[in-house]
């Protein structure tokens, strides 16, 4: 069960139970919808982007513990960041959950998002963790819809 406890760490379970920034953002000027048709995960990411910086971010939708916690922690991680930094964080996160490289630099940049490193042992769950990030990326770039399959 050790890989399983790597995957379902307390932090992740906590964010699943009490997702942060889990609401519709009335002041949003960007949003996108993300689907994972394979498992039915579905979320909307709302952004208030000012001067190319993420002033506010929120999400709503339904999904598994991994996708919900990933979305919740993503909103905390990118709030206040520039568009460029948010995108860089996305690519670091993506690298962490899809490759075996344990680069110090990547880990450092990700901070507490490192709790998701266990996901890479579960290839079918990688899309759950990255769906919120793909959706945020779409919102940043004015794409309305993403689907991970």
């Amino acid at each position, binding site marked *: *069960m050790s890989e*399983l406890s790597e995957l379902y760490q307390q932090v992740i379970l906590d964010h699943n139970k009490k997702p942060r920034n889990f609401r519709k953002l009335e002041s949003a000027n960007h949003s996108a919808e993300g689907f994972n048709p394979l*498992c*039915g995960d579905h979320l909307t990411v709302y952004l208030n982007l000012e001067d190319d910086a993420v002033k506010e971010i929120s999400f709503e939708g*339904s999904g*598994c*513990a*991994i996708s919900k916690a990933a979305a919740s922690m993503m909103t905390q991680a990118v709030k206040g960041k520039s568009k460029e930094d948010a995108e860089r964080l996305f690519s670091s996160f993506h690298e962490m959950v899809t490759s075996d490289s344990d680069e110090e630099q990547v880990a450092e940049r990700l901070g507490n998002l490192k709790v998701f490193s266990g996901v890479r042992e579960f290839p079918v769950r990688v899309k759950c963790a990255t769906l919120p990030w793909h959706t945020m990326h779409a919102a940043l770039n004015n794409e309305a819809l993403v689907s991970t399959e």
Partner: protein
Amino acid sequence: MATIEKSVSIERLVNTGFDVERIREDFPVLRQTVNGKPLVYLDNAASSQVPQVVIDRGSIYLEDEHSNIHRGVHYLSQKATTAYEGAREKVKRFINARESRECIFVRGATEGINLVMHGYGRKFIGAGDEIIISAMEHHANIVPWQMLCEEKGARLRVIPMNDAGELLLDEYDALLNERTKLVAITHVSNALGTVNPIKKMIDQAHKYGVPVLIDGAQSASHMLVDVQDLNCDFYAFSGHKMFAPTGSGIVYGKAEILEKMNPFQGGGDMIKSVTFEKTIYADLPNKFEAGTPAIASQIGLGAAIDYLNSIDRKKAAAHEHELLRYATEKLSAIEGVRIIGTAREKLSVLSFVIDDIHPHDIGTILDQEGIAVRAGHHCAQPVMQRFNVPATARASFAFYNTKNEVDVLARTIEKVVEIFS
């Protein structure tokens, strides 16, 4: 020692008289371990496992008989053709069709339904006509009809169901009218396990002269199917859900209807003669089988039918029924578990949700214990919407599953609840 062994074997027979341990020996895939645990395969509604005799039959074909069918005067081609057409004969007897030419080989139930949509629907259904399906169809029996409705300006009508997952037959009756041109319903729901009273529903449609297609994807392996007794006009099923390889399957159609229909795909094997001015189509069943088919898979379907005929299917069905009853009892007893689909007539499918725990998380944790279930919408998103859940976890049984496996499932679900508590 001998006495103990004897008492064990009597115990395993005592409930349904079905020797499941003997049967398990026929399925090599069941011998493996997953994540260090014995495989508990409970995803039979998605695809069932293949017994050794079916694997062997495929090998024999590939080693000794492989060639293209219907087109060679040489020895191997004749041998392959004989084996392929022999499989069709087996199918004919298996579903009690009048003639083997009524059994069209297709890639699976999905292709069978699409064949009827193209061959029958596009020819005989037009603007203002209506097609009736049910609220519990999976996408394979929704999307082709939607495509047809869009193309022709026809209308899709949907028979609703109650909270137990049973179709409302009065509503069905009210939907039938002179505009109805086809009824397409599932025999057994893949997401809920509901067994529909299709014989009665077919009779109701026939009062209006409406042909009926039955999606038999979930029924063919679990119950005896007699297309003449049902009097259905079409019956489609997949081989890979009844112990045969993927790529095998059948759509049965009454000969007089198949003859009126347009072909499905064009190509070799489905013609009598071709000139640039005109093509004359072949007779049944070849008219619907363009190109080289999945010969090895369809021969495998024939072998799977032989296998099913070699076991006591009534006892196997009773065993499956007992597994479903036992699993329903065990899972219902776990706090937070809710069974989705509680029809009075159910078959081998147990869909469930646990409080706030997403089925995908359930699936991953079960997999770590070697248990294979389906987690998701089961290609039946409207069913999920009807029950207001994004997805369910689904355990689906075959006759090679055991009560012990149900115990492992129940124990692991308790563990899931614990992790998320």
